[in-house]
């Protein structure tokens, strides 16, 4: 009598959680933009035995965006999940993994992310500003002014923009632009005049950072910028480094 096939795994079984953890680490380790994602729900899992101690696992995961930029060295466990009032973003990933002698590896992955709908956000939080599009002129201006303001007021390496992470625009009761962006140190100091010639530091000296800024347009003109440099991180094969791409 053929051996009974193993009972199907439950999505909350320890083996499923271990596979999901390996998948999420892979996703964050191979992402080059935006924020780290964390597991919200294992939608489905299918295990296909391939032979002794050899299985192929198909995983469907629901993820949620955290507030940690993908370049942040903060461990995922310490990254707060972005609240829905901050206009949450969910990710959906389908992955194919292999488990050989208990060791998991990702063979393929396909992910896409989408922000919560503006209607849903408005319904749950009428006063919460929704996400703005990156190329909104007010967003672009706020980022440019914030980075220039930071470079003009801080000694040390001149920082260049790597990418805008997200932006929101509030119109009532005040007109305020909220932006978050990733930066990288260059080979110039902020004191130098010709900053156009500044180059991003090579990977073995790279120093990335993350800035948040709030620009009040009305009723008053105010700009608050806060940047945190991560310090040099040793690149690893999986560590996504944006130094080759600047946007």
């Amino acid at each position: 009598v053929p051996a009974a096939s193993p009972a199907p795994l439950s999505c909350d079984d320890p083996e499923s959680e271990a596979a999901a953890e390996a998948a999420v680490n892979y996703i964050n380790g191979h992402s080059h933009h935006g924020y780290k994602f964390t597991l919200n729900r294992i939608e489905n899992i299918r295990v296909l035995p391939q032979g002794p101690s050899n299985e192929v696992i198909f995983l469907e995961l629901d993820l949620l965006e955290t507030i940690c930029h993908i370049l942040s060295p903060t461990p995922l466990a310490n990254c707060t999940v972005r609240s829905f009032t901050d206009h949450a973003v969910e990710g959906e990933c389908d992955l194919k993994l292999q488990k050989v002698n208990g060791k998991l590896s990702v063979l393929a992955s396909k992910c896409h992310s989408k922000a919560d709908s503006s209607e849903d956000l408005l319904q749950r939080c009428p006063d919460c500003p929704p996400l703005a599009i990156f190329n909104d002129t007010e967003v672009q201006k706020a980022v440019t002014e914030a980075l220039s303001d930071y470079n003009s007021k801080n000694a040390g390496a001149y920082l260049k923009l790597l990418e805008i992470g997200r932006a929101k625009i509030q119109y009532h009761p005040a007109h305020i632009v909220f932006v978050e962006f990733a930066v990288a140190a260059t080979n110039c100091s902020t004191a130098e005049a010709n900053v156009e010639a500044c180059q991003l530091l090579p990977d073995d000296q790279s120093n990335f950072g993350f800035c948040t800024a709030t620009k009040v347009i009305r009723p008053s003109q105010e700009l608050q910028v806060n940047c945190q440099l991560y310090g040099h991180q040793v690149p690893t094969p999986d560590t996504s480094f944006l130094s080759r791409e600047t946007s």
Partner: protein
Amino acid sequence: SVARRAVAEVAQHDKVPRPVGFVPPPPPCPGKIRHFKI
């Protein structure tokens, strides 16, 4: 017809009576939500 009736009776007796308060196991998937559902 005898066989069919007999089978029907056996099948009837075969049905395992469920203990009082029987709670079926949760479906294997999808799993629990860890934060919130968008």
